């Protein structure tokens, strides 16, 4: 059987940053990239099934939509034991939103026919929480979002999942497979890549495709296949804490005073 794990390279901002000339995104020179935190957990969950009872025949395929620089994140996944890595890109995807990205992943999933798809609940940068479930919709597969525990025996036709709800409670759901699940932080403890794994991953091939080769037509690419369009990006006016300045001793003294005032008032 096969598990498809879509991953994303996410961006954080440099301390000082500037917007692109069109004002619709941050100038790429001010972005720092990393593998989305959630994707460490999705890959781990796939690896656990592969390494667990009955998992011998499982193939774990990591996939992403992005330019060449994203190979770095795919290699991190290969270093942790993924069997295969696929990257899809076309310049027209530059303006794709979560739905636009899901269209490309859906085309790839149709080629791969996985038995399970594990996506992160959301990505750390824009936190749309939409790509995985949009993929489920496009493939018309059973789906469950925000899964905090998974009980699945490789090869079976259903899985039992525990969805994490608000306020610390959970819902247990039995779901037919193949299925798309978005997995929540904390579902497992992700492994670190071994030095040997990292060295080997550097040599391993990454399959690179353009979206058109997967049959994604121009009207589904990038902005045309997206459900929204960015008009502008700006720094919000924020409320700001009153900063307590001084040496650590002075700062702590003021904090102690706040705590004591509270204690006196309570």
């Amino acid at each position: 059987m096969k598990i498809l794990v879509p991953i994303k390279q996410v961006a954080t901002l440099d301390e000082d940053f500037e917007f692109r000339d069109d004002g619709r995104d941050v100038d790429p020179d001010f972005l720092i990239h990393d593998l989305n935190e959630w994707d460490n957990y999705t890959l781990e969950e796939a690896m656990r099934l592969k390494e667990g009872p009955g998992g011998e025949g499982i193939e774990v395929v990591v996939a992403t939509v992005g330019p060449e620089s994203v190979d770095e994140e795919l290699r991190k996944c290969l270093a942790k034991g993924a069997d295969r890595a696929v990257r899809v890109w076309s310049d027209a995807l530059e303006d794709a939103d979560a739905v636009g990205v899901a269209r490309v992943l859906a085309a790839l999933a149709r080629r791969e026919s996985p038995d399970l798809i594990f996506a992160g609940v959301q990505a750390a940068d824009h936190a749309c929480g939409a790509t995985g479930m949009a993929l489920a919709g496009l493939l018309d597969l059973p789906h469950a979002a925000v899964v905090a525990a998974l009980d699945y025996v490789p090869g079976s036709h259903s899985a039992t999942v525990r969805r994490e709800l608000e306020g610390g409670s959970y819902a247990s759901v039995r779901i037919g497979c193949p299925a798309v699940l978005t997995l929540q932080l904390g579902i497992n403890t992700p492994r670190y890549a071994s030095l040997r794994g990292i060295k080997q991953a550097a040599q391993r091939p990454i399959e690179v495709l353009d979206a058109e080769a997967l049959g994604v037509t121009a009207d589904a690419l990038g902005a045309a296949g997206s459900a929204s369009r960015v008009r502008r990006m700006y720094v919000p006016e924020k409320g700001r804490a009153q900063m307590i300045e001084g040496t650590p001793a002075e700062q702590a003294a003021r904090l102690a005073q706040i705590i004591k005032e509270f204690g006196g008032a309570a």
Partner: protein
Amino acid sequence: MSGILVVSEHRNGELRPVSRELVGAAVALKHATGEPVRVAVIGEAPERYVAELKLAGVDEILTVQAVVDAFDPEIYEASVRALIEAREPSLVLLAHSVDSLGYAAPLVVKNGYGFASDVFGIERDADGWVATRSGYGQKVNIEVDFPGRSVVVLTVRPGSYKPVETLAEPAVSAIPAPAVMPRSQHLGFEEPAGGDDVNIPGAEFIVSIGRGVGEEDNVEQFKELADSVGATLGCSRPIADAGWLPKARQVGQSGKTAAACKLYVAMGISGSVQHMAGMKHVETIVAVNTDPEASIFTIARYGIVGDIFEIGQELRNHF
């Protein structure tokens, strides 16, 4: 296409409070645009929730009878599609909640609707609906629009709009339930395990630790610090996920709300939306963080840019 459709949420037989916030958002837009507001409720016995949804500003309540009361993504997806076809709204508001995460995206991709999630601002101008959400760890705001889409679905960040509490007498209509063959089955709800006997919702003074703690061995000194200043020790998600403190101490959307808290000292917590959902109502928040740009400083009353170990050590000298 016109009108605003709100899809309410309920769980375990109770209407979720965010439903009244969505009505608040819709009614504000009604005042700005003149669009009628309809509120839908989907459930095994949807009439159970109708009385609570008879809110001022609502023009019509729509009920859809489902085969089960618990959330099922495919029942919700089909029902909301049927509601959209029946009333042809231009804007559909869902909560940005765990349940909506499970069906909003499939709904929009199958029907070609416009879509944005976790929005906290909505307007309409000459080109149509415009939504505002945040990006890059809440450091920027992003304004999005939906060219060419006659129906726009938005999931709205809880806490962004004031709930409507005033009651009124809107019309109530039943919308026929679409035939759905659910491919998943709700087995039951589980309440969280207790962990230790900590009571975050009842605590008036919480010292809370986050990723800045660095490693498990460092947790103990903050436990001691909390004890010495007379606070309950709380934490953010990464600390509970790592198993360094029990889940019962986690403050936030998927943890506990610091409901009775008056003083919250956040140490090494940068302030995710999910964490802030559990404590932003607290009167006095003091944030200690090495990153002067951390989001938590936008809601804290007092901020200290500094090392939590150093500040902790100095603080101990005062108690």
